[in-house]
């Protein structure tokens, strides 16, 4: 029963939010309580997974390959926890005020539908359900993006909708081909059936389709061009929610599906990914250096750092994958924080253009010090969490003999530092433009990001135990026998 909670709680909250009368404070409290409920259920699930192993729920009691299966192994449980954290923080940000036009059109309910879709995608044990959860998540994100009808937002939303629908069509095509040959849709059953029934041509076609579909959703080179166009335009809390969760669902799908279906280490999909990941890093970061708006700098950084989360899968060693998973957790916290920080400036100065920012270090030193943590954690400055995860990736790239991957990861680290140092200098350090006088940022605006900063510092201190968890998760992913047995019950 436990596993259904991260899906059922946001669904119930979304329905309740639609039924409640339009009183902003009431809606905000209910939405926040629902997100906190997801967080609590996520902690309980993670606890159960750590102590009792992979948790499986067969909906309606139908045995595994025939019914709907929900599975939480260590990887899924960790990501559900992140859904809880990001959801709570983003709904918490609503307390500082939401555009009333959005709020009256179902802003809070849509956030919960989105959280439901993401949780469902992380928990499902069935590839067609994965497609359905992707669609749930996409519809919610489409509507959230286009709720407010300024021209730039509408147009960015259209680009986003078109490319994501194309990705969904590719995903559906791959699933259809896979079902036609393997005769099953259950992940665990596929892991058994596909190596026996695969034909080389079909295997190549399916892996290319999956790589394209998930690559578009994750924002991998060369499929990322929609992301920097569409992510900077929605309101900051929504941008933070998208940046923290949505692209990671694409990465999750790759890490979940590829080791199950394409078990051999020599499968070409890993060779392609090993090229695409470093290229994504380099292109994303070089593009980030050329941007003059804080939110666009962050969007390109988001793209570049997706490369770090997929390179571990491409290297296919336990250490590399574990480091990538740790990086993924760190990045979800940090990029969400940074998008929220971008929101501070929009609120205070009505712009996020770097040229017209500055001076926060003098006017509100404590707030600026808070922002320093995510800025330099993203850059990988020791001893923050970004440094630990990057060190793990570089060390495992060296260990497996891929020196050029290590070299590129180091170079991109340097580019990130450059990009973040520029953000720090322009947005916080330099004197503000002379003509302007700004109000102070109230505590309700800063608080959600402050909570995430505390969690980032927590991840830095607890990096040892968390890395042990991701090592275990990587072991489960690369050796799916335990997952298969847990789902199919040894049959």
């Amino acid at each position: 029963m436990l596993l259904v909670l991260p899906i059922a709680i946001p669904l119930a909250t979304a329905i309740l939010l639609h039924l409640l009368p339009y009183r902003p404070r009431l809606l905000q409290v209910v939405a926040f309580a629902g997100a906190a409920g997801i967080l609590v259920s996520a902690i309980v699930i993670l606890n159960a997974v750590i102590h009792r192993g992979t948790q499986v729920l067969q909906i309606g009691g139908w045995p595994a390959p025939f019914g709907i299966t929900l599975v939480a192994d260590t990887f899924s449980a960790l990501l559900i926890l992140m859904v809880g954290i990001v959801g709570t923080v983003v709904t918490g940000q609503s307390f500082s005020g939401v555009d009333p036009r959005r709020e009256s059109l179902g802003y809070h309910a849509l956030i919960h539908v989105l959280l439901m879709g993401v949780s469902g995608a992380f928990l499902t044990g069935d590839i067609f359900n994965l497609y359905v959860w992707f669609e749930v998540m996409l519809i919610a994100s489409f509507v959230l993006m286009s709720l407010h009808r300024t021209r730039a937002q509408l147009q960015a939303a259209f680009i986003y909708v078109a490319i994501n629908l194309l990705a969904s069509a590719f995903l559906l095509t791959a699933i259809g081909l896979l079902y036609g040959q393997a005769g099953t849709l259950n992940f665990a059953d596929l892991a058994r059936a596909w190596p026996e029934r695969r034909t080389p041509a079909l295997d190549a076609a399916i892996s290319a389709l999956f790589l394209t579909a998930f690559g578009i959703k994750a924002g991998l080179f060369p499929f990322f061009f929609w992301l920097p166009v569409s992510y900077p335009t929605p309101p900051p809390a929504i941008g933070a929610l998208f940046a923290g969760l949505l692209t990671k669902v694409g990465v999750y799908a790759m890490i979940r599906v590829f080791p199950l279906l394409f078990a051999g280490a020599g499968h070409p999909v890993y060779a392609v990914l090993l090229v695409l990941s470093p290229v994504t890093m380099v292109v994303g970061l070089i593009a980030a250096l050329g941007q003059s708006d804080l939110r666009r700098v962050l969007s390109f950084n988001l793209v570049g750092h997706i490369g770090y989360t997929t390179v571990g899968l491409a290297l296919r060693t336990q250490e590399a994958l574990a480091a990538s998973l740790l990086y993924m957790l760190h990045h979800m916290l940090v990029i969400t924080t940074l998008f929220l920080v971008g929101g501070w400036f929009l609120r205070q100065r009505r712009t996020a253009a770097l040229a017209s920012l500055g001076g926060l270090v003098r006017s509100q030193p404590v707030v600026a010090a808070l922002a320093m943590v995510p800025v330099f954690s993203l850059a990988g400055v020791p001893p923050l969490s970004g440094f630990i995860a990057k060190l793990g990736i570089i060390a495992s790239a060296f260990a497996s003999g891929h020196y050029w991957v290590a070299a590129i990861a180091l170079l991109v680290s340097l580019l990130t530092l450059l990009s973040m140092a520029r953000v720090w200098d322009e947005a916080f350090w330099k004197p503000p433009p002379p003509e302007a006088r700004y109000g102070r940022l109230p505590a309700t605006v800063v608080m959600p990001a402050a909570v995430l900063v505390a969690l980032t510092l927590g991840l830095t201190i607890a990096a040892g135990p968390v890395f042990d968890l991701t090592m275990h998760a990587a072991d489960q992913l690369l050796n799916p026998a335990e997952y298969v047995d847990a789902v199919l019950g040894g049959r």
Partner: protein
Amino acid sequence: MELLLAIVSGVLYATGLYLMLRRRLAQLAIGLALVSHGSNVLIFTAAGVIRSRPPIVPESAAGFTAVAADPVPQSLILTAIVIGFGVLAFALVLAHRVHVSADTDDVDRILPDRL
């Protein structure tokens, strides 16, 4: 029959992708619809086309007596059609709004600003 359906599916994909590359809002939406129809036909074909053998076990028999049609792809397609319809309806409304606000239907010119 499989060959014919495979060709139909391929033609749907090809025309859909061609229309999507035409850079006009209405054609992009129609292209999306054709691609999703193409994938529906593909699922139907890939899962095998069998004439009039419903997947129902007779009351007297213990199992299937002959190869029966697989009901799963049909439920997959039904789900995909419903999702595709909803999403396409949304995309059409959005395309209309974009057309009104940008006063052009050239996809290249509706971008908020240059990358």
